[in-house]
């Protein structure tokens, strides 16, 4: 019941927000649009990450690898396929990579999984750097990138898709299976949940959109260089936002992304190191004192018994 009520309230609101977001390029300046692009990017990124990590409890610290793969695939395909198809190709390649590594990687658990994903991202970076060097490439410039408005709309679409995917997943049998994996993998397996397959599907789902995000970021900076595209800070920031937003709440990714983008807009002014220090302190504070994240705080504010929040506090990866 609580679920129904919440969504009936949330849906019109979401529609309004979406309408507002869609119209942004029509009236906002480039700076606002840039902020919007960044916000949509983080929302899409964190939400995609959540598809895997929040639902299954397998914390990925290497999601930059999918951005990197997507960006690289897009850059390679660009001369042949044109921008739109290259972008999709990048997403597909990221998904394919996830499919290929899925089975072996998703067997590894706990802290081992976390550092494995990080190691994989660094390995992929080293391989792509080596590949670029052996092809005699040093960095790639991209000409004729689409305008910011177009990039923004595409990024917004990715964010919407990611949110919709998370919503659909949360009410599907697949989602229920993944939650079972998170709560108790052995038990899930024992009652016949096809654990290995579900986990691989979750990994692939959470990889495709980051692949396209990587492509879009490359178009935005009109420049590709492996060290940039596979920047591990991307992975870390994603996890940070997810944790600060609230891991187990559907509102978490929104709140996390918004909080960070706002904070950075405010503190960026002349205080970059202080901004980073604040970021670090915030992260620590949330892990230690507010494990349910901003979403938990929000639902406590409206303490009318939000059921979704309750699950969040219990147990983590």
């Amino acid at each position, binding site marked *: 019941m609580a679920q129904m009520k919440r969504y009936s309230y949330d849906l019109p609101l979401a529609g309004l927000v979406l309408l507002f977001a869609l119209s942004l390029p029509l009236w906002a300046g480039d700076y606002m649009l840039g902020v919007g692009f960044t916000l949509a990017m983080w929302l899409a990124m964190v939400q995609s990450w959540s598809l895997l990590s929040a639902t299954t409890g397998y914390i990925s*610290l290497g999601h930059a690898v999918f951005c990197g793969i997507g960006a690289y695939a897009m850059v390679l395909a660009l001369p042949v396929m044109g921008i739109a198809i290259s972008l999709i190709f990048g997403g597909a390649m990221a998904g394919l990579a996830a499919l290929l590594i899925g089975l072996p990687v998703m067997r590894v658990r*706990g802290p*081992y999984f976390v550092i494995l994903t990080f190691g994989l991202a660094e390995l992929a970076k080293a391989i792509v750097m080596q590949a670029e060097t052996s092809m005699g490439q040093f960095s790639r410039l991209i000409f004729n990138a689409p305008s910011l408005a177009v990039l923004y709309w595409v990024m917004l679409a990715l964010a919407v898709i990611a949110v919709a995917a998370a919503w659909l997943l949360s009410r599907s049998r697949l989602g229920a299976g993944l939650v079972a994996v998170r709560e108790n993998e052995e038990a899930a397996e024992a009652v016949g949940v096809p654990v290995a397959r579900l986990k691989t599907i979750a990994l692939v789902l959470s990889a495709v959109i980051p692949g396209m995000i990587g492509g879009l970021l490359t178009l935005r900076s009109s420049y590709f260089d492996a060290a940039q595209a596979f920047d591990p800070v991307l992975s870390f920031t994603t996890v940070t936002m997810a944790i600060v937003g609230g891991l187990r709440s559907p509102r978490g990714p929104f709140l996390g992304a918004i909080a960070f983008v706002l904070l950075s807009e405010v503190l960026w002014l002349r205080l970059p190191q*202080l901004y980073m220090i604040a970021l670090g302190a915030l*992260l620590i504070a949330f*892990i230690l004192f507010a*494990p349910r994240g901003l979403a938990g705080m929000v639902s406590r504010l409206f303490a009318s018994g939000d059921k979704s929040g309750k699950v969040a506090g219990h147990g*983590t990866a």
Partner: protein
Amino acid sequence: MAAQLFFAALCSGALYALVALGLNLVYGTLRLLNIAHGDLAMIGAYVAFVAFSTFGLAPPVSMVLAAGLCAAMGWALYAGIFRRLFATPETAQRLEANSLILFYGVSVILQNVMALGFTSTARGYSYMGEVWRIGPVMASGNRLLMLGTALAICLGVLLVLRFHAFGWSLRAVIERREAAGIVGVNVDRVQGITIALGFAIAGVAGVLVSMTEQITPFMGFPLTIAAFVVIVLGGLGNIFAGIVAGFVLGFVETFGIALTSATYRSILIYGLFVTVLLLRPQGLFGKAIQVR
């Protein structure tokens, strides 16, 4: 040539072993993945730099200072935050599960505090740069000092673990924290001392690398990564195997480059890292001992 390579591998290996040792001690006793470990080494490097260029103190003195400073940080972190969280199983579990992200926050703070205080300009100082010839091997003084110190600390820790009651207590906590208390080990004290010790070792490692590397607020991350590769090779929390793995990594890196090409260095190391995690998460050596 072979002897020179051997020396190079030994030097890299000793440094890897030392950096990883501190990380492994902290992971072993507290189950915390300290991704800020390299940043403690960075703090050590700045201690050495300031001591040398402002006060004219040589790195061997700085080692003591850096060890003391980092140990104090470790102890403060433990007494101020971790001890309380370890008191109840729920918070302890949450802390352990999120430790890597938590220490990422610590890492960001340390780097940027140093960048604020010292700017991010590279720093450097010259100490014992003269080259010695030892048989077929050419070695600069600072690398010999690094090798000697790293070996001495690793050996010292191993001896304590083998022969001293504190070492046994420590191993007991690493192996079964819950059972250590009932034989009379003061787990709280062991954990506090160990985190201080692990941090101190990182600080000393930082002093050692500061003699040959450029010093910047961001120099720590590569060290952290190297340390993680090493403790994964050895098996998380397995102190002895971790030290062996440090040398294995040094030799794999040096001779791997010699046999193939330097260009494959990172692919080789990360490839090894990923392979071990996929195939033998308990580490290259030890038996398949269940690590929670």
